[in-house]
Structure formats: structure tokens, C-alpha cells
């Protein structure tokens, strides 16, 4: 682990040319270093932008006309003394300013180190710290939006709201155990069970929205599968917007997996084109089929491509069977050719979920496919509200909380006494508190004493 008490510097704006670029210096030496790399003679006034020049520390030659702002700790982003120098955004000049700062005694920051310091100094809670990381590495616009909301505390607020209700419940149950002869009726175990169940449902909702959030954050894999020559590679290329996979009239052209990541309505989707799945004895092709099956197995969703110009055969049905029950889009291709069958009259197609008929010779079907695929990924409900939580660790903890809450409510309904209901409620509370990194051992008692007049 690197030192966290020295002064660090880095370009704080994303790489690449832009309008303005910011160099951030943080640590006990920030103001001293600023004095050496800026041309102002007077000390920077706190929290006010000063127009000045950035200088080359060696020959004192001006590097750029800059605005410099001093944020004294602890009321700064990192909680330490921070100086931000915004220059004209040319990467070359920004790098020279950073070099000037290191020459003046700063150390080049590691990735995420500003955020780490903010966290260590209590400026951010864990959720926010993780959100900053997500924001910085966001690729698609909607991803950035989710990460940003999390930074602003949407996640903390959503979990905090649940935690407050749970906390209150725990406090009342604890009070009934520790103060049995106070003449108070705090709450009975059965009523607590009902509350626990409703909390479990709320946590569940949060998880569902979080899983969508996770789609947005981490993206997902979608496999394109079907018999050879049905048009899989054609579909793949159209979704990618480039000729990535070879499209050929000869069956069995695609032998290995071809992948490409595309932005699908804000979700980074990794498309996987696969070899045609069919029964074969040829060794290379058989390996391709194995890999295709594996890709289908791990994908978050599958696009099954069928050819309308030829009758469905056993391989088609086998694939439909294998992928039944999974998030799936069925594309019935080559609608420009004479139909050998039709999904409308094929009775077994009725149970196959969303079916889209396409012609993939030109790009006309791409938009329809994107729309249908997005719906499959979102599980039917479009992502309207911004999901609050998109971090895998948080989803795990929420899952733990939900399971514990369900156990608590079942125990209470079965007539278990308070201390057992509490064992599970406490576990749920620990899980929720782990998300925001907060933990106060006396909090429950505090709450009881503040709410109730207890003791003799």
C-alpha cells in the first residue's frame, strides 16, 4: 500500500483533448507546491479562482494561462489541502504542469488515489467512493448517469431509508427484551414479522432495480445462435454497425466466437457471434459448435436465429428447447424469400416468447432488433427510473439482507420469540450498514433512550 500522507498530483479530467483540463494537487504540501509552479506572488485565497500563469519550475518560463483555486482541508474533495489548476486542456500542457508539480515535490497519484484519500478522511462513504470510481470509468452516457446519481447519494438515500425503518424495528424489539417490566408495549414479535416482510419486499425491489443498474454498469453478453447459414453473422454485423464477422453463402463459415461490444440504449452489450449449431462429425466444426454452446450457456441473453425459407429441423427445435426459459429473442430471418413455414401458423412457436421477422440483407431491421433486444434485457419493464445501485457488492449485501428479513418474518409468523427474530433482523441491518460503511455499536440503545422513558 502506498503512502497516504504525502502530496499527490494528477490530471483530474478525462484523457484526450478537451475544452479545459484540471490538474489537482492534494496533500499537506499542496499550497507550497502551488507557490512554486504558479506566477502569483501572493498566496492563493481560499475557495476563489485566481487568474495566473503556470511556470516551468526550471527556467520559470510560462507554460499556460491558468485559473488556480485553493480548497483548504478538511472542506475539500479529499479532506486535505487541495489546489486545482485549470489550464487549456491540451494534454501536452497539462502533463507539463504535472511534471512541474512533481519537480516541486509532489508525487504522481495512483489511479483512484484522490478518492481513496477522500474516503480515508471521511469525506466520502464507501458507496460514494465506489461511485466515483464508476463515474470515472463510465463508458456509455447512461452508465455515467447512474454512477453520478450514486455519487450524489441516491444509493445511500435508498438504503438509508430502508435502514431507518429496520433500525426502528430493531430498537423497539430490543427494548421489549431489555425492558420487560417498564409497563410499555413496544411491539410484539408478530407485528414485527409483518414489518420485516414488507421491508424484505422493499429490499427486493431495490435488488431488481439494482440488477438493471448492474446491466448498465457492467453490461452483459448476448450470444447469437442458430443453425449454419441462417444469417447470424449478418445480424451480428448489423448490430455492430461494422463488417466484423465474415458473411458467406457457405454454411459453416464462422468457426470460432467473434465478439464486439456495442452501446445498446445505454447498456454496454458484448455480442457474441457463434458457429452454427448442428450435428457434425467434422472435427474443427465440432469444436466450433461446442464453443457456441458454451457461449449460449454463459450469456445473459440469447438471440436464436431461424431461417423462414427452409423448414425447421431437429437442430432448430433442440436449440429452442435448450434456450427456453432464458432471456431470449427469436429472430425469424429471410422474410424476403418464399416462406417454407410461418411463426404465425407454427403452433409450437407460440410459446417461444418475442419473435421478430427480419430481412438481413440490408440494414433496415437493425433498429427493430435493437429495440426488441433491449426489452428482453430489461426484463420487460423499460429502465425508466434511474436505478440507484449498480455495484455487485451492494447487490450481494442487499440479497443477504433480503434473505435475513424473510427468515425473520417467517420466524415471527411461526411464533418464535423476539430474540430469534432479532438475530435475523440484526443480520439484515449489518448487511445494509456494510453498504454505507457505517457502524455504531451503541446506536440501538441511544434510540431506545431517546424515544422511551425507561428505567426506574
Amino acid at each position, binding site marked *: 500500500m502506498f503512502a497516504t500522507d504525502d502530496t499527490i498530483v494528477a490530471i483530474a479530467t478525462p484523457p484526450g483533448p478537451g475544452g479545459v483540463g484540471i490538474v489537482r494537487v492534494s496533500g499537506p504540501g499542496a499550497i507550497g507546491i502551488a507557490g512554486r509552479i504558479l506566477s502569483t506572488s501572493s498566496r492563493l485565497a481560499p475557495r476563489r479562482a485566481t487568474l495566473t500563469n503556470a511556470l516551468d519550475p526550471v527556467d520559470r518560463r510560462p507554460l499556460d494561462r491558468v485559473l488556480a483555486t485553493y480548497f483548504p482541508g478538511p472542506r475539500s474533495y479529499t479532506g486535505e489541502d487541495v489546489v486545482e489548476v485549470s489550464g487549456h486542456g491540451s494534454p501536452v500542457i497539462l502533463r507539463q504542469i504535472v511534471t512541474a508539480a512533481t519537480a516541486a515535490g509532489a508525487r504522481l497519484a495512483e489511479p483512484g488515489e484522490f478518492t481513496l484519500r477522500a474516503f480515508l478522511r471521511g469525506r466520502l462513504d464507501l458507496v460514494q467512493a465506489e461511485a466515483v470510481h464508476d463515474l470515472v470509468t463510465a463508458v456509455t452516457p447512461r452508465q455515467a448517469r447512474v454512477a453520478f446519481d450514486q455519487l450524489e447519494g441516491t444509493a445511500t438515500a435508498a438504503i438509508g431509508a430502508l435502514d431507518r425503518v429496520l433500525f426502528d424495528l430493531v430498537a423497539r424489539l430490543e427494548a421489549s427484551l431489555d425492558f*420487560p417490566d417498564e409497563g410499555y408495549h413496544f411491539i410484539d414479535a408478530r407485528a414485527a414479522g409483518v414489518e420485516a416482510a414488507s421491508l424484505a419486499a422493499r429490499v427486493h425491489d431495490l435488488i431488481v432495480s439494482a440488477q438493471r443498474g448492474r446491466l448498465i454498469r457492467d453490461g452483459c453478453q448476448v450470444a447469437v445462435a442458430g443453425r449454419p447459414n441462417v444469417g447470424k453473422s449478418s445480424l451480428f454485423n448489423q448490430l455492430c454497425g461494422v463488417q466484423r464477422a465474415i458473411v458467406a453463402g457457405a454454411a459453416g463459415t464462422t468457426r470460432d466466437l467473434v465478439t464486439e461490444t456495442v452501446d445498446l440504449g445505454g447498456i454496454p452489450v458484448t455480442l457474441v457471434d457463434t458457429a452454427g449449431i448442428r450435428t457434425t462429425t467434422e472435427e474443427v466444426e465440432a469444436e466450433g459448435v461446442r464453443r457456441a454452446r458454451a457461449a449460449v450457456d454463459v450469456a445473459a441473453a440469447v438471440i436464436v436465429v431461424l431461417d423462414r425459407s427452409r423448414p425447421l429441423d431437429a437442430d432448430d427445435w433442440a436449440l429452442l428447447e435448450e434456450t427456453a426459459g432464458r432471456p431470449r429473442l427469436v429472430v425469424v430471418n429471410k422474410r424476403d424469400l418464399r416462406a417454407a413455414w410461418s411463426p404465425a401458423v407454427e403452433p409450437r412457436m407460440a410459446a417461444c416468447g418475442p419473435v421478430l421477422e427480419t430481412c438481413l440483407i440490408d440494414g433496415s431491421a437493425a433498429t427493430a432488433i435493437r429495440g426488441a433486444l433491449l426489452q428482453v434485457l430489461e426484463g420487460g419493464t423499460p429502465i425508466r427510473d434511474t436505478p440507484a445501485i449498480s455495484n455487485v457488492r451492494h447487490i450481494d449485501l442487499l440479497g443477504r439482507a433480503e434473505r435475513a428479513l424473510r427468515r425473520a418474518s417467517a420466524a415471527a409468523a411461526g411464533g418464535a420469540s423476539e430474540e430469534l427474530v432479532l438475530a435475523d433482523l440484526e443480520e439484515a441491518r449489518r448487511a445494509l450498514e456494510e453498504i454505507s460503511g457505517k457502524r455504531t455499536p451503541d446506536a440501538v440503545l441511544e434510540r431506545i433512550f431517546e424515544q422511551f422513558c425507561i428505567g426506574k
Partner: protein
Amino acid sequence: MESRFDVIVIGAGHAGVEAARAAARMGCRVAICTLSEATVAHMPCNPAIGGTAKGHLVREIDALGGLMGEAIDATGIQFKLLNRSRGPAVRSPRAQADKRRYGAWVAEALCREERITWVVCRVGGVLVRHGRVLGVDLETAGGEAGGETLHARAVVVTTGTFLNGLVHVGRRRTPAGRAGEPPSQRLAESLKALGLPWGRLKTGTPPRLHRRSIRFERLERALGDEQPVPFSFMTGRIDRRQIECHQMHTTERVHEIVRANIQRSPLYNGQIEGIGPRYCPSLEDKVMRFPHHERHQIFLEPEGVDADEVYVNGYSMSLPVEVQESLVHALPGLEDAEMMRPGYAVEYDFVQPTALSRSYEAKDVAGLFLAGQVNGTSGYEEAAGQGVLAGINAARAVACEEPFVLGRDEAYLGVLADDLTTRGCLEPYRMFTSRAEYRLLLRIDNADLRLTERGREVGLVDDRRWARFQDRRSRFEENARRVARTTVTLADGNRARASQALRRPDVELEWLARGNELRLEVAPGEEREDLWSVETHFKYAGYLERQEATIERARRLEHRRIPASFSYSSLPGLSREIAERLTETRPDTLGQALRIPGVTPAAVALIGAKVSA
């Protein structure tokens, strides 16, 4: 008088008597110093032992071989098992004591210990050289400095509320440890000079009424259990006749009087600085802080079978005497009650226990132990619990043995020591079951199974107790085996393994054992204990299995030791505030560090990285 001892205990309150007896039983020659022989194991407040979590402490003290359990079983006058309708983990015994007999019983028990010498004298200072305790200086009979010097390898300070004690009744302030007992000022200054950190706390007590002046017939009776559940594992049945208490509520008239006179209360006119316990609010606080409460509960508790004094539980106050009189007379049934003693508040100095290690030894003074209310706690049971462990550890220090520390997953006594020394006291500390994260494990039914062997190892459990315990443990183990391998028929006709059936809330072991399928071993007179411990063992099994993983994780942190010399201020990444907290507390392990208020998991991760590097 002999002036050389192994251990000197200052104070003969609930902490002092346990410490002295434990050290003596472990082979030490012990001097116990007290201001008066008449106040040994005295109850200056509520004449009762036990209650939620406190009852657990008493059971654990008993399981280790301490005194308190047998003392209350011998002198209790009304017994009640609290939380009877709830699960076994939170059931806790409570008993009204015959206050005078309780003290006399304990004093006699100590007098039977040959290695204990009584010193009725005020200690004026602790002698320390080169960071090591040498003994104590007594004051002269006239209360001056310069009395005799007693030498010892270990000194246990258990002076309760006496250090710079100040009693308040209305505007009247009297230096006193308790009403009518002069305080210890010289000793307080001597301890401060050792560099121990200090704080000031406050507590209070209600007025006492004359029994014959109360119209009991107008009050609601409050009875104990028909069949008392004893505190001690050594007690069989308790067949003593039990007394009755009475119950009433405050009235609007009472609240009016309090509001009208609030400026005359030292609590509200700025006269008292010490912080009082929120779980034991004075009448002034009840009325002022909870104005929306129409009434508060009050119990009248006799202080003994034939004592005249009746304790007014729930009516603690420090208003001027004449206001107290009118407050008493405002209660229905007490119109003509005679107030024998007014209530009062007492402020006192305490040592911030973060200066102690979990064996109750001062971190910077070898051989100096502190236990009881002097550590910021409140309550007889909390005091006694610390006393036993401080006594054990003083004896071990004399014998140059490793400290004896109980974990948070082993006993409430472990939770107590860890809370005090890790987090210190911001208000008087009282035990609650919610403070124990492994509450389901720390039950009254298994206190002996958890602790008696530990008590035997350190030499506190005598042969009689050990023999009785071994019998009980083998019955428990045999019964557990039988339950595990027997299939029984349930009320609905279905068959199930007894061990599984017991996990249901409505299935009781006694019921299962009534059929022919499951036979259990029980000792006459101990049927209830025998059944309870087996039943609970299986009832909680599912929860305990789940908790085991958490305990294991915590234990790993608990086993990562931090060297005593560890320098937090030079650890990069720690905020100054956190570094200061850690430097002050000097936690033994990463687990303890994580429990210090304000110390973040990130900070502990940083320390962990450094410690293992």
C-alpha cells in the same frame, strides 16, 4: 498488624468482596480495606439483584466460583424470572434482597476465608515506583495523611462512588461517597497523579418511607414467581416465604409539583455537572424530558423482611427535602407516609476505563487493578463481575501468570470488560442483552457449561462445585446424545427426529420426554436446569450454526494482535483523530480496534496491513 500482603483490595462493596475472595481462594494473602464494616456489600440504592442482562452477569459470576449468586439465593425475599414468556436467551432472574442480611451474609463468607485480613481504615494513596505498584498508604484514624503503609504486589481499587463524591439534596451539597459516608479525596488525587484519565458521573436514589405509614390496601400488589428460579448453580430449591411489593403510578399532581420546583433541582439549575444514566432517569428527567407521558410506573419495595424502610422504585430525585415530602404525599396511598430518608444525587470521579487492559490492570501501572463503579459502571452486578475478574487477574499477576480474559463470545463478563476498556464511558455503563452480539449463545442455562471449567482452571472453583458441575455436564452431554439419536411422535402424529422437532417454537422437551420414546437423565431438584439446557441447545441450533460463521470471522480479527508499542501517529493514511483514539486506547487486537468508536474499517485495514507486514 501484618503489613505485607500479596493483594490489597481497597473497598468492600460488590466489586471489592468478589475481588478479595477470588484472590484469597487462588492462594493469595489478601488485605481488604473498607471505611466501615457495617457497609460490606452494601446496596445504597435498589435492594435487588439481577434483572435483564444483570441476572446473566450474576449467573456467570457464580459459574466462575464467585459469591453474588449464592448470597442472593440465601437472602432473597422475592424472586422473579424476567422475560419468562420469551426465549431462553433473554430470560433473566431478578430478586429483592433483604438488604441487611445480604451484607451480613457476604461479610460472614469473607470472614471464613483464612487468607483475608480486614483493614477498617481509609486508604490515602497508592504507592507506585517505576511503573509498578508497591502497596498503599493508610490515613490516620483522624483522617490525616501519614498512617501505616501496607505492601503488596497487586492492588485492586474498588472505591465505587467515593472518589471526590459530592451528595446533592436541593441546594445543599455535602462531600460524601454516599449519604452519611465521608468521601475519599486523598486517594482520588493519588490516582490522578498516576496519570489515569478522569471523568465525572452522577447517579441518584429515591426517598425511603416507613412501612407502617403506607396504606398498602389501596395499592396494587406485585408478586414474585411461585417457584423461585435460583441464581446459583449450587442452590437447589428456594422455599423461603416471599414478600409482596406494591405498584402505583405518578399522577398529574406529581408532575405539576416537579415542574413548579424544577429550578430547585440540582439537575436543572446547573449545580450538577456529572452525567447521569439515561436508563435510570430521575423523576425530574422523567417529567421534563418526556412531557407527553401522562404517568410513570412506581414500585414500593421493602428493604427486608423485618426492615422498616421501603424503597420507592422509580422515584429517584434530588429536590429539596420539603419538595420531596410533598411529592411523596401527592401519591395515592402515601398521603400520610413518613419519609425516613430523602432521595439524593451523588457526583463522583471515575477512571476512564480505556486506560485499563481487559484484565482490568492499568496499562501504565503494573499491578494496579480497578473494578466496579470507579470504572464508570453502575450497578451491583456490573461491579461484582469486574471484581471477580480483577481479583483473578491480581492473583495471576502475583503468580506471574498470563491475564485471564473472557471473549465477547464467551460471556457477558467478556462483553463488559471489552466494552469498558475499548470504548470507555460517556455515561454510567449498565449491561443490556442488546450489547451482546452473541446473545443467543450467552444464556443463563449454559453459564456453567461456558465458564465453570474456566473457573476451575484458574483455581476459583472449589471441589464441591466442581463435582456438582461434572455431574451436571455429563447429564447434559448424555441427554444431548439421546435427543440427537431419538425419533419421536409429534402431537400431529408425524414422526421426526427429536433434535429437529425441538427447533419448532411450539415443541417443548418436557412434552417430548413425557412419551416413552425419549428418556432423559435428570437429577432430583435440578430437573428444570437439566431440561432447559438441553432444550435450548437444540432450539437455537439453527441460529447458532449460522452465527458460528460470524463468530469465526470475528475471532480471526480477535487473534490478530497489535503490538503494545505500535505507533499509530506514524501510520500514513490514518486521520489524526483516529490515530489519537487508537493511541489512547491501545487495543490488543484488530478486533478490539474495530470496536473503538470512530475507527473505520478502512483504518483497521491499514493497521492490519502494517501489522502483518
